[in-house]
């Protein structure tokens, strides 16, 4: 249990809040690159701030406040200029730095526009995503974690906007025991209700779970019943990259990567992005249907509004949402298997103190030498994926990727490589 004050402190994301200030030290995905391929703007809400991502006619990409300072109209419905975005209402134009470059109906000699600047933020592109940074300057480096920069990779991006605070989503990732029940026993119950039989590696009992702090967050490890202590699940595990990423490992084993990113939209909303990269041998020809980074929405409700609980991520989503928009931690009853959750909360608290003391929180990178290719600890032989590539890929949200059948057909016959 936490006090109400503590719960508020760890869950608030807005500007000027304790955790909001910590969160502003990290880069966040704001769009898939493909979203600006045919469009010029995307409305973005991040850390409680309303923004617009835009591409101008010169190909510059900017992230600025959503509202035009003139009369408050949304620049998300603006249109592109050679060097910026124009407000649809009166044509005021703003470049990627937030400078007002044109005010069409003001007198030619007016200096008004020179005295006007809107909030603008840094944007970078990496791995098929645009990333934005809202924090204090100078901005740290955009971390080049393995899966985002692995070469010659097939990439897929699933996403869903969920009506929950980001912390309860992250807490799910430091709670290994839930996999045995939610993705094991409950999953089998759902399947049995439908008269379906399924082989399900997730049902195996956890004998031990452990958590280690490391340079970028927390590594969680587990030992299942019947496993020896030299198994990858126990000796390596996989990490939670503080504050908002779970690097769970791709279903293809070595050379495949999967990130679950819980991007705080505001206190009660999280943009969940599932990012997969399947690196293949450099001399392997990737089929046309898998060359582009596919972007797809992950559904979590059926046509009747009931939760979709027949796949792993849908089961998790059901739990996060039914906990309430912001989980009430003043009334919870944590047990011994929740120690990872406790550690994550303590890590949050520690980072709040660091930022308030003027220091960088954990995992902020400023040394380019450390940022060429960050290989995260990742078990290569993972028990949970032992049902085989096709079975497990179809049991995750990847089942909704438009080209999933092509991926399964292609990948099962390819040599896996370590980048």
């Amino acid at each position, binding site marked *: *249990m936490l*006090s109400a004050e503590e719960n508020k*402190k760890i869950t608030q994301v807005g500007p000027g809040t304790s955790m909001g200030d910590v969160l502003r030290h990290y880069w966040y995905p704001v769009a898939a690159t493909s979203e600006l391929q045919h469009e010029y703007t995307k409305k973005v809400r991040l850390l409680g701030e309303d923004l617009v991502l835009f591409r101008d006619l010169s190909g510059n990409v900017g992230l600025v406040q959503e509202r035009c300072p003139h009369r408050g109209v949304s620049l998300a419905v603006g249109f592109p200029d050679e060097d910026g975005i124009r407000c649809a209402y009166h044509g005021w134009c703003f470049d990627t730095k937030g400078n007002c470059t044109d005010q069409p109906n003001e007198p030619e000699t007016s200096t008004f526009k020179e005295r006007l600047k809107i909030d603008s933020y840094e944007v970078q592109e990496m791995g098929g995503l645009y990333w934005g940074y809202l924090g204090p300057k100078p901005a740290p480096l955009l971390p080049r974690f393995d899966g985002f920069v692995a070469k010659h990779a097939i990439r897929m991006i699933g996403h869903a906007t969920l009506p929950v605070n980001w912390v309860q989503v992250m807490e799910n990732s430091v709670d290994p025991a839930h996999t045995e029940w939610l993705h094991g026993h409950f999953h089998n119950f759902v399947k049995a209700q439908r008269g379906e039989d399924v082989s399900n590696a997730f049902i195996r009992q956890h004998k031990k779970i452990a958590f280690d702090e490391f340079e970028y967050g927390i590594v969680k490890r587990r030992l299942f019943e019947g496993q020896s202590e030299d198994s990858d699940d126990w000796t390596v595990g996989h990490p939670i990259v503080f504050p908002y990423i779970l690097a769970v490992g791709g279903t293809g084993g070595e050379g495949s990567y999967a990130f679950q990113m819980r991007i705080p939209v505001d206190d009660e909303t999280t943009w969940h992005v599932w990012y997969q990269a399947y690196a293949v041998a450099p001399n392997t020809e990737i089929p046309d249907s898998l060359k582009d980074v596919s972007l797809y929405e992950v559904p979590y409700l059926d046509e009747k509004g009931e939760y979709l609980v027949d796949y792993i991520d849908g089961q998790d989503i059901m739990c996060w949402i039914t906990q309430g928009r912001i989980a009430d931690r003043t009334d919870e009853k*944590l*047990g011994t298997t929740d120690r990872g959750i*406790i550690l994550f909360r*303590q890590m949050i608290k520690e980072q*709040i103190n660091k930022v*308030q003391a003027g220091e960088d929180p954990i995992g902020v990178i400023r040394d380019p030498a450390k940022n060429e290719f960050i290989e995260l600890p990742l078990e290569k032989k993972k028990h949970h994926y032992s049902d085989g590539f096709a079975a497990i890929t179809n049991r995750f949200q990847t089942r909704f990727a438009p080209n999933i059948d092509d991926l399964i057909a292609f990948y099962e016959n390819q040599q896996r490589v370590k980048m």
Partner: protein
Amino acid sequence: MRSHRIESPHDRIEKPKSYVPDIFFCPYCGSSIKENKSFVLEYWNSDQNVFFCWCHSCHWRGEIVRINQIKATEIDE
């Protein structure tokens, strides 16, 4: 029609309106752990209420447990 159910013992447990853990000082350095930079969280281990503590002042991290009965052997975790 109003439904009636049998009262359970849990119904008689009065929940605090605003939960605040009853740990006041760091057992290692003696600093006030109530101070909002430290971290105290209560969880349960069998019949024990455990207070996980992290002191921002000395960075001690540990757990505080009230011992109700002295046992000769410990239960496996």
